[in-house]
């Protein structure tokens, strides 16, 4: 049976697919990749469906051994990659022979990297998805981060040829990005000065950030009257502003509901970019309308469809 054997897991490597929608209403988050576009490109580079399961690694990648020949692709964070000791490319698929060892190092820029293998990872789905939700011990391999010695079953690989992402579609993680937000749902709970400060920034990513939420430090976002609300649903990208006026962007493993005011919501197409900001790096929140956001979303989908040559 075809397997991917984990020789070293890295600090936080999990199996992910495009997630587990439909269960937020009972408190189970969708999970899935933090950087959805990088994840989809990795799968497309090896001829997989967008939703095939692949590995997400945070800060530092794994060392893995293949039991049979596969096409692989690595996207996302800028990590040094070697195949059997020789340098190997990112954002480009290549073949690994049976017994080949692929090693991903520490991220120079960016945070999350994706390793897709032709045929996909074939761990048993939970609630219709292979995505790992570590806090809920659900999905992936035993609902946990991978460990040394784990052997992941692989699906049947179709015939695919190596491909690569065009140069202009490879993101530059050294840049401190502007992240698009739509104001609301509780922007009326802040002072005009507070909202102005929020949109001026910049905000520095804090090391306490994870797949549940990204914490930032920056100009105080002043409340008009208290930070508590009647608990409501927390959308992907929802920006909770806690007592000290500092923002937390809620991400793929977020709590389904919350009782803090939310100044704005990061647009779905910029969530992946938030997930690639290193602790200590900064970003700015830039306001768009819902209509503008939808236009950007459309063009981003088209760009994704023309990203591979």
């Amino acid at each position: 049976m075809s397997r991917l054997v984990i020789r070293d897991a890295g600090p936080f490597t999990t199996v992910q697919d495009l997630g587990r929608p439909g269960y937020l209403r009972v408190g189970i988050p969708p999970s899935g990749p933090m950087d959805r576009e990088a994840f989809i490109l990795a799968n497309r580079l090896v001829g997989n469906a967008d939703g095939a399961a692949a590995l997400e690694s945070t800060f530092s990648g794994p060392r893995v051994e293949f039991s049979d020949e596969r096409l692989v692709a690595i996207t996302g964070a800028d990590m040094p990659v070697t195949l059997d000791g020789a340098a190997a490319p990112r954002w480009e698929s290549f073949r690994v022979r049976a017994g080949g060892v692929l090693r991903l190092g520490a991220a120079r820029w960016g945070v999350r990297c994706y390793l897709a293998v032709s045929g996909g990872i074939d761990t048993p789905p939970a609630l219709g998805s292979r995505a790992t939700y570590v806090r809920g011990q659900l999905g992936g391999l035993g609902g946990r981060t991978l460990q040394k010695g784990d052997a992941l079953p692989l699906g049947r690989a179709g015939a695919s040829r190596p491909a690569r992402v065009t140069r202009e579609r490879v993101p530059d993680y050294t840049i401190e990005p502007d992240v698009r937000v739509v104001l609301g749902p509780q922007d009326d709970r802040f002072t005009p000065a507070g909202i102005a400060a929020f949109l001026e920034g910049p905000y520095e990513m804090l090391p306490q950030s994870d797949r549940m939420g990204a914490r930032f430090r920056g100009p105080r976002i002043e409340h008009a009257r208290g930070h508590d609300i009647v608990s409501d649903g927390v959308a992907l990208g929802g920006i909770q502003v806690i007592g000290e006026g500092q923002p937390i962007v809620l991400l793929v493993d977020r709590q389904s509901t919350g009782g803090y005011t939310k100044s704005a919501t990061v647009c779905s197409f910029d969530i992946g970019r938030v997930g690639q900001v290193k602790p200590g790096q900064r970003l700015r929140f830039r306001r768009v309308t819902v209509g503008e956001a939808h236009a950007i979303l459309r063009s981003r989908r088209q760009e994704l469809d023309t990203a591979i040559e």
Partner: protein
Amino acid sequence: MAIYPEPRFLPCGDVAVSVELGEEISREVNARVLALEYLIGQTALAGVTETVPTFRALLVYYDPLVAGYEALCATLGSLVAQARPELLPPARIVELPCCYGGELGFELDAAAAKLGLPPDEVARLHASADYYVFFVGFTPGLPYMTGMPERLTIPRLETPRTNTPPGSVGIGGTQCSVYSVESPGGFWVLGRTPLRLYDPAAPDPILLRAGDHVRFRLIAHAEFDAIAAQVAAGTYRPRIEQGEPRRVARRGERAGEASERIEQGEPRRVARRGERAGEASERSEEGSR
């Protein structure tokens, strides 16, 4: 006004909108929220990908490439006008066996002292009430409930615990809750249920749903152990009964008076893949009526 004359639509980024139906936390407003969610499911509204009910709002996730914002809000607005709680299938009554006091209910004595009641009386009062689940969330399977007897109103712990075992039944303020996963907590733990409100290994991992009624049944430690063993073996079937058809709770009416009829409950049914969690049992029971 408990319910807004017109719903408020609050954008939540590019893929979600919050439909807020009222100002206050009440069963009346919440029943409207659940009815709206139910209608959206029944009409299979194009572009809606997921819904999350809370006290007074429904968060609606959508695919903007299928449904535009203005058109979606207009459609949701017309559904709000039709969202009468009478449409909802009958509420379920879920029994939670609970062992009060001792090592499992390690704060029963302290809470009783604070309330000036004998511990047995606190347990009896707590188990005598009918609780209504506004919604489930924050952590997987955690119920937000109302219906606790007023005499059990108690300030939250001054220093929250760093860890509370799953299944712990706690009270704080006017609220009662059951910890679904190991987590920090500021509620006084009166007892523990051997049932799992969240069981990631089960085909249907969530026990409670928005709109359910919950009744606690006092059990002794020996029965707790026996049920816990059955739960671990996967052979325990929670008692879930069919309530009366929902009716609108009037303002000021005490929570949890809607359903009193007792009959043998259907065993918990496994949600099929693709079926939205939380509708499986209600649908099957509706069909069996």
